[in-house]
């Protein structure tokens, strides 16, 4: 009985902390913005578009903070909003041409320079950078859904069920996308090995 009470108390504390976390928008942005930006940038492959999606995501989250029931983590909730925004953006075919014209590519050299030199030698660092670029290039070859799901699984460490909840896809669809993404990336890494 004591254990049950303890668990419910813990859940209640977690829920109230999540709700209070949502009230503090600046803290929310500080904590989740880099991860959200990474996810959206590599999903849509356009950093400028990703910036606006992430801004919109925080605005929506702040405006609908009262509807957050606390049945999932704030992170999952935010990624769910971001997923909806990406989906809406991809559905809007109206400005497809202008989007293609205005689309900015991810600067790979800038990104490679971000990999800090925690490696023991310059050769190891170079190898790590090369591998990271290979994964990025392999991601570019995937479909948007495969990219999104791969990033949620391997960058955000979400379970397939959480990904299913976040994206609104069926669990089997999530698994199928995940398998295909893994096979494609594995092949690319194997070829360039």
């Amino acid at each position, binding site marked *: 009985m004591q254990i049950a009470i303890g668990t419910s108390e813990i859940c209640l504390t977690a829920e109230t902390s999540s709700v209070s976390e949502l009230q503090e*928008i*600046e803290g929310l*942005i*500080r904590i989740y*913005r*880099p*991860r959200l*930006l*990474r996810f959206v*940038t*590599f999903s849509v492959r356009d*950093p400028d578009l990703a*910036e606006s999606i992430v*801004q919109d995501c*925080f*605005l929506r989250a*702040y405006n609908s903070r009262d509807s957050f029931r606390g049945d999932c983590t704030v992170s999952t909730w935010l990624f769910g909003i971001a997923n909806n925004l990406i989906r809406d953006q991809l559905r809007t075919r109206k400005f497809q041409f202008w989007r293609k014209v205005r689309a900015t590519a991810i600067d790979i050299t*800038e*990104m*490679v320079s*971000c*990999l*800090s030199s925690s490696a023991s030698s310059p050769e190891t660092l170079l190898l*790590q*950078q090369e*591998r*990271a670029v*290979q*994964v*990025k290039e392999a991601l570019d070859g995937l479909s948007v859904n495969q990219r999104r799901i791969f990033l949620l*699984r*391997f*960058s955000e460490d979400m379970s*397939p069920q959480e990904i299913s909840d976040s994206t609104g896809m069926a669990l089997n669809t999530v698994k199928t996308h*995940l*398998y295909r993404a*893994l*096979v494609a*990336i*594995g*092949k690319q*890494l*194997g070829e360039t*090995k």
Partner: protein
Amino acid sequence: MTSPHLNDDQFADCLLGSKTNSAQAAHLLECPGCREELELFRSSVENFNSMSLVWSEKRSATSPTCVVSKGSSGWVSNWAWSMAIVMLLSVGTSLHTRNEANQASSTVQTSAPNNQNSEAEIAKDNELMKAVNREISRKEPFPLLADNVPVPRYGRGVKKQSEVRSE
């Protein structure tokens, strides 16, 4: 080493941490090639994750982050509103001054002919109108209806004018 190497699906199973049977686990233990390939994938994804996270952290630090502040009512900040109001006011005042200038010029244009409508001009116009009336009312025979021109009669044995022309 008796068991065959892991195929793509089995690799995916291992990476997802699902459905790894004992045979696959045993193979991974004894096959350095498959182990190395699995490790290569994991390390590559880890490198990518750390690299992309640092990149997005840097980008977040440099880009304007303030979406909604507690005091403000929305996206648009105070200076943007004030700029919009100033622009609206300037456009409004310029339109107002332009309207006033147009009205002044139109009153000048309409009053100027009134001054020129002198008695002499009215008399001149009247003379002109009378001359026109005279010209219109003069009786002159219509050239085609003169008495010496025979009027063709259409009937049996008489050819129509159009038929004559065609011949």
